[in-house]
């Protein structure tokens, strides 16, 4: 028996999302009177792997295979399923990000496990196994029951805290059984931005809507994001107009985010956008229209033009940071 967590790495390093996942696995394992095991694929230095122990992993299974470059779904699935079998995992947990969404359903089929995706808390109960997740893109919460013996979960980023737990993690190396058929896809090129805050991982998100008035008017927003260590997001019209890249679109058909603080500039708050941000802990909005729906979702609001408010806000933040 065990809870197995798959932790993705970024050029050999873990991010907050990885520690949250390990902490979740550790707390779930404690409820189930078992241990949390982590599987890590690719080259990660030993000292980095050891960090996972500080969040409750009791064992880390390291898999290195020189054929692996980038995410190859079939190969990663086979590796995780083999480790799950070896460790007798009852529950396998992934982050609910691009990589987790790619792998978790495949692993679920392999293990004949029922899957709950985007869960945002520890289970309501273990028998029956019931867990909460957002449904209808943030407009409601569903309690999903998993009936199968084995279970696969994906954990929504920023929904649980990474709690430190002093486990002395054992690191072992595992050699998976892989054939060429597992490598039917090939990553030809990777364009990774490693110095930027990931939108789904960010504590603070600074976001702009149509009220930003054009593609060339984002410098102040970028400046504020820099000052706050925030990720940048935008609304659908903004990405559709090509003012900002699609990867920054937050809302129904874009990303769903759950930061601690979401700052909305020039966003009126269409229902599709609100769905994508409703899990944010604090929403702050600046908009010219005092009746804009964004103010119904916001905790603090300023009625004003972003072109005038932003420079003042940047100045005030800069001053405050000096103190």
């Amino acid at each position, binding site marked *: 028996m065990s809870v197995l967590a798959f932790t993705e790495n970024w050029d050999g390093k873990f991010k907050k999302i990885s520690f949250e996942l390990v902490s979740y696995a550790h707390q779930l394992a404690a409820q189930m009177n078992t241990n949390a095991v982590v599987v890590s694929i690719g080259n990660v230095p030993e000292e980095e792997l050891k960090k996972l122990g500080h969040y409750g992993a009791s064992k880390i299974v390291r898999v290195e295979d020189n054929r692996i470059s980038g995410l190859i779904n079939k190969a990663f699935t086979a590796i995780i399923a083999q480790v799950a079998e070896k460790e007798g995992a009852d529950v396998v947990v992934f982050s609910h990000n691009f990589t987790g969404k790619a792998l978790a359903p495949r692993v679920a089929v392999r293990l004949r496990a029922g899957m709950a995706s985007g869960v945002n808390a520890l289970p309501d109960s273990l028998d029956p196994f019931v867990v909460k997740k957002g449904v209808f893109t943030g407009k409601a919460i569903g309690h999903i029951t998993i009936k199968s013996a084995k279970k696969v979960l994906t954990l929504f980023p920023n929904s649980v805290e990474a709690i430190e737990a002093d486990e002395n993690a054992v690191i072992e190396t595992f050699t998976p059984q892989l054939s060429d058929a597992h490598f039917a896809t090939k990553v030809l090129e990777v364009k990774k931005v490693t110095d930027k805050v990931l939108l789904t991982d960010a504590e603070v998100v600074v976001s702009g809507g149509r009220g930003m008035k054009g593609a060339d008017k984002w410098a102040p927003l970028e400046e504020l994001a820099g000052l706050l260590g925030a990720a940048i997001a935008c609304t659908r019209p903004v990405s559709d107009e090509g003012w900002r890249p*699609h990867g920054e679109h937050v809302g129904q058909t874009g990303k769903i985010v759950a930061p601690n603080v979401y700052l909305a500039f020039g966003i009126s708050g269409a229902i599709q956008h609100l769905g994508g941000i409703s899990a944010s802990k604090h929403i702050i909005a600046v908009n010219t229209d005092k009746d804009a729906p964004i103010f119904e979702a916001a905790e603090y609001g*300023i009625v004003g033009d972003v072109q005038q408010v932003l420079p003042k806000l940047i100045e005030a933040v800069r001053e405050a940071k000096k103190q």
Partner: protein
Amino acid sequence: MKILICLSNVPDTTTKIKFTGDNTQFDAAGVQWIINPWDELALTRALEIKETSGTTIEKVTVLTVGKADTEPTLRKALAIGADDAVRIDAEPKDAYQVAAQITGFVKEQPYDIILCGIESSDYNGSTVGGMLAEFLDSPSVSSVSGLFLENGQIRLNREIDGGQEVLETMIPFVAIVQKGIAKEPRIPSMRGIMMARSKPLTVKPAVAADELTGFTAFELPPPHAKCKMIDAENVGELVKVFRNELKII
């Protein structure tokens, strides 16, 4: 080559969400049903590829797992330009059971390219495409934001957290697509709507498949407290909130 697009029939994205039966069932009364937005983008891209690659693409099929009430959604997909439609006559219960239904059909009638949306806007599962690929033992590429067919070779762009990748894959494969795959979903033309009436819509019997999960209860998020307004001339107040309350500076 043949392309299959798996469609999900979902409530319009502006629907006010309500539940019935003591919050155990989604209240479908008065709901407008649409093609799941990502699936609609996948269909649009499939048609673009078909039109720009000569005779390479033999046909574009759309498929849904659902009862007869999902047929208007399939007809809409035919009106947009799909060549034929398949409905697997099963009540969709969970991703595992739905993926098993699609697997049954694909094993009988193979496709070279299978496209699924990255999630459905109702239960936000992000699950069926990946499960289908594993059932079929096919390669899968997920979060695909670009799909290109050049000289019979497939190229894909994939979004990753903090970047983008370019991939190639063998055929057959499953692509799980997201925003960016097509610019705007196509809207059916009057001619398309007329033609859709005579295009084939085949109903296939369900295969035996278990569901492994089920929703037992729903709740709506608690109402928000009233927004506290700060004067635009006094942004310093907001900075105080940043520092003292939110602790972000």
